[in-house]
């Protein structure tokens, strides 16, 4: 059942991509046909430019849109590919004259258009893949700066390596393509690749890491790979555009690949909305056409450089008024998905209301959990899990402050352990140590007989520790369903030994089925907390680490959360380690409580024992002695 469901899902995703790409391609074909039906060869040039821009911007979208990392460096690979084509395709007889000192025996090479394109694109992509390692590792602004450095380094090499490139003058007499067929084909391929990439595991993981760089590893995503994959795919597309462009124009020179040109292309990406392929497509059309219109108006009124003014104004207005781009997050493919899931759910709901398919209310989670949790639990598997979570003698220092000073605890499989303590006791720090976000100075974290002390967060998540965060870290731009589905996808991939949990079951238990297609960021607080729990559970972890799951909830909601956490944990067969300030909640839910103060365990035992414990009362309320006047 899960396998057929999976391949059906895959087919559906591919279908959506194909339809969306086809629609955009069709619009372009119709517009271009109408436009070129009169007006002559100049109009044909604009169409060529639009097609090249589509390929490049789709390439940019794959990386920048999915990872949120700004890149200035893509054009460098278009340039490398363009020179690659020029050097391999210019007839040997011509090269003798123009490039007499050409190295590497390139003087005798004379490839046809297909051969030259393939060689150039492959070479540029391989170089891109190598540089991509650094970019994917760095992430953030540092990655942006590496891309900038790459752009300038390549620019300098091209300008100064006279023997290969003839410097600023560039290379000409590149054999030209006689039809636009290849460009049209490339545009279609680019649209398809951009759409399909967004549906692949790498694409979805890259988006998750874009939305929250800390939450993504917490469900087992190693952010390096999706980023790198996105980079390589996008470099390949941009290189393809460069290789074709040089064969349309017949020449190439460094002026075609400057930062200014790069910004023009980035503007195309962001003006429409960089996060979606639809946005990138619309932006490309708007800027390409607007730019041409500004040029023509400038020509007739003799205003030089009007296109640049247009670009600056357009970009500024969009950034100030619609920072997300004209379309924001609107996307044909996503719209089709919502329609599809919406209708499917109505079908499913019509015969007899599904337990979770009601508006989320305070008691809904508990009720739906009670109805679906009993029969379909995976609790039986928990016995085969990997043993207890044991933390020993952990010391963490922030400067001179000992946040953890020999903290230790143990959670047995299936057990629920509460972690309490006053503010600053080190509870969240302990989670961060277990989870790999904070490096411990000494001490160990073991899961069964596996030492997790030195593993990075994504390995720890894959080993079976899933967590939630005190201040909520959802994949905000993604749908509620996708938040859970991402973790389920990671679970299928990285925890294949465990039976996967159905996404819809978890959503139903959390009372989120009715809002499954909404953007996670638009949920109210209580639902966001339940969603984070559902996402963590979807990893089918050995242990759930919950950091203040009832923070910000009403008393009634907190109480409902007791049952909800229990059922969810039982459903996926996980033990629980839970931090909370709400003592009523912790007392009710825990089998065992550990009290932390000043980085040390000051008491542990059953909830009743802790309630009577002197040290705990003192840590919370302060010592009552002579030194403090009443």
């Amino acid at each position, binding site marked *: 059942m899960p396998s057929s469901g999976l391949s059906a899902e895959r087919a559906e995703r591919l279908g959506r991509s194909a339809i969306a790409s086809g629609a955009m391609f069709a619009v372009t074909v119709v517009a271009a046909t109408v436009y070129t039906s009169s007006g002559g060869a100049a109009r044909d040039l604009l169409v060529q430019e639009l097609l090249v821009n589509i390929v490049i911007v789709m390439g940019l979208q794959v990386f920048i849109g999915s990872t*949120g990392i*700004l890149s200035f460096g893509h054009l460098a690979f278009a340039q490398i590919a363009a020179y690659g084509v020029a050097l391999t395709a210019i007839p040997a007889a011509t090269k003798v004259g123009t490039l007499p000192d050409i190295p590497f025996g390139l003087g005798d090479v004379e490839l046809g258009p297909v051969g030259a394109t393939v060689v150039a694109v492959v070479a540029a992509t391989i170089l891109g893949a190598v*540089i991509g390692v*650094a970019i994917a*590792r*760095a*992430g*953030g*602004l*540092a*990655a942006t*700066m*590496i891309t*900038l*450095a*790459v752009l*300038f*380094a*390549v620019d*300098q*090499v091209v300008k*100064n*390596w006279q*023997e290969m490139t003839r410097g600023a003058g560039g290379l000409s007499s590149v054999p030209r393509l006689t039809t636009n067929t290849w460009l049209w084909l490339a545009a279609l391929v680019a649209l398809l690749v951009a759409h399909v990439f967004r549906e692949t595991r790498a694409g979805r993981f890259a988006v998750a890491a874009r939305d929250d760089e*800390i939450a993504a590893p917490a469900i087992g995503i190693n952010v390096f790979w999706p980023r790198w994959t996105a980079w390589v795919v996008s470099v390949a597309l941009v290189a393809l555009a460069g290789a074709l462009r040089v064969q349309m124009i017949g020449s190439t020179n460094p002026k075609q690949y400057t*930062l200014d040109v790069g*910004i023009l292309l*980035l*503007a195309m990406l*962001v003006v429409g909305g960089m996060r979606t392929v639809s946005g990138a497509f619309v932006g490309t059309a708007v800027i390409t056409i607007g730019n041409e219109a500004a040029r023509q108006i400038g020509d007739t009124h003799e*205003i*030089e*450089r*009007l296109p*640049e*003014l247009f*670009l*600056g*104004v357009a*970009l*500024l207005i969009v*950034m*100030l008024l619609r*920072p997300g781009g004209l379309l924001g997050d609107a996307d044909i493919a996503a719209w089709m998905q919502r329609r599809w899931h919406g209708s499917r759910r109505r079908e499913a709901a019509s015969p007899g209301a599904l337990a979770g398919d009601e508006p989320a209310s305070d008691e809904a989670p508990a009720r739906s959990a009670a109805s679906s949790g009993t029969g379909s639990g995976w609790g039986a598997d928990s016995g085969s899990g990997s043993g207890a979570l044991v933390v020993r003698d952990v010391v963490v220092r922030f400067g001179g402050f000992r946040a953890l000073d020999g903290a230790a605890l143990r959670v047995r499989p299936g057990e629920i352990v509460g972690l309490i303590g006053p503010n600053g006791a080190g509870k*969240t720090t302990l989670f*961060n140590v277990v989870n790999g*976000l904070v490096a411990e100075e000494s001490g160990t974290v073991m899961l069964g007989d596996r030492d997790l002390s030195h593993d990075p967060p994504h390995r720890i998540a894959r080993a079976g520790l899933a967590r939630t*965060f*005190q*201040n909520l870290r959802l994949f905000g731009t993604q749908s509620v369903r996708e938040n859970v589905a991402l973790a389920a996808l990671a679970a299928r991939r990285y925890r294949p030994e465990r039976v996967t949990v159905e996404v819809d079951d978890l959503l139903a238990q959390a009372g989120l089925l009715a809002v499954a297609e909404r953007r996670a960021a638009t949920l109210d607080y209580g639902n966001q907390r339940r969603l984070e729990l559902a996402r963590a559970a979807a990893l089918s972890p050995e242990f759930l680490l919950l950091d203040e799951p009832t923070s910000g909830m009403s008393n009634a909601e907190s109480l409902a959360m007791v049952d909800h956490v229990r059922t969810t944990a039982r459903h996926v067969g996980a033990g629980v380690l839970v931090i909370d300030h709400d003592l009523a909640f912790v007392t009710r839910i825990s089998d065992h409580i550990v009290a932390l103060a000043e980085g040390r365990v000051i008491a542990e035992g059953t909830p009743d024992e802790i309630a009577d414990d002197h040290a705990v009362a003192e840590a919370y309320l302060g010592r009552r002695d002579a030194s403090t006047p009443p």
Partner: protein
Amino acid sequence: MSTLVQTIVDGLGRGSTYALLALGISVIFGVMHLVNFAHAELITVGAYLAYFLSTRDINWWVLAPAIVVSAIVASVATERIAFRWVRGSSPFTMLLTSFALERLSHALWQVFVSPTKKSFAGPAWVFDTFEVGGIRFEWMDVATIAVTALVLALTAFVFRRTLFGIAVRAASEDFDAARLMGARANRVIAGAFAFAGFLAGVAAALILMRSPSAEPALGSDYLIKAVVAAIIGGLGSFTGAVAGGLALGLAEVMLRGYLPEGVWERLTDAFVFALIAALFIVRPQGLFTVRSAERV
């Protein structure tokens, strides 16, 4: 020995302007997490002002302060016109806003003045030299280094001793906390832009004395170097920005001096950028780390 000293002086002179610009970028990044790609346009503003004024035979002793004032005014204006409205947006949005301003600045000069380079007269003493212990120095190099040192000392004083400076530093560490302590966001940010404008103005005056000409894309070359220097130093770290600027200037001059002639020499800039890329691979956070306040 003497060439080494000359190289160092040369490198520090070049690095000084990078440092001043990088410091401005770092200050603005500190208060609002904006990497301001429009920052070097302030040089262009100063350049066109100098071009217009120099045609009226105005002395450089008046011109230089005028350049500084124009940069301050322009810097504050960008904040009022554009950056105030995207405050608190994603760094990506702010960065592109600054790009839009940079484009706009280029286009406006091109459309309303001229796309071509306009030269004017620099001060007469700029290329005069003097000799100490057999080593020849340019007055301009010495003046650049001296002025920069003075401005940096002033900067250190402002950030350590004045309420404004302390508010800016506090805001760089945690803006919300600084606001709760009574720092007024609009004033601190506008002040930071004014101060960054002042630094850019000084850099512009020094640059224009040496090469007195105005063209629309004048800022671009400096911009890249300054941004790179600020990021090498670790954005938001003021010491880092200065160190990054000086290091970049020295690296450029040294590489040019020591790379073998021919192709390699022509590829100096390519090497500088390759080195920078390598640096970010080793230390993504830059040389000087700024404590991150993000809570998990």
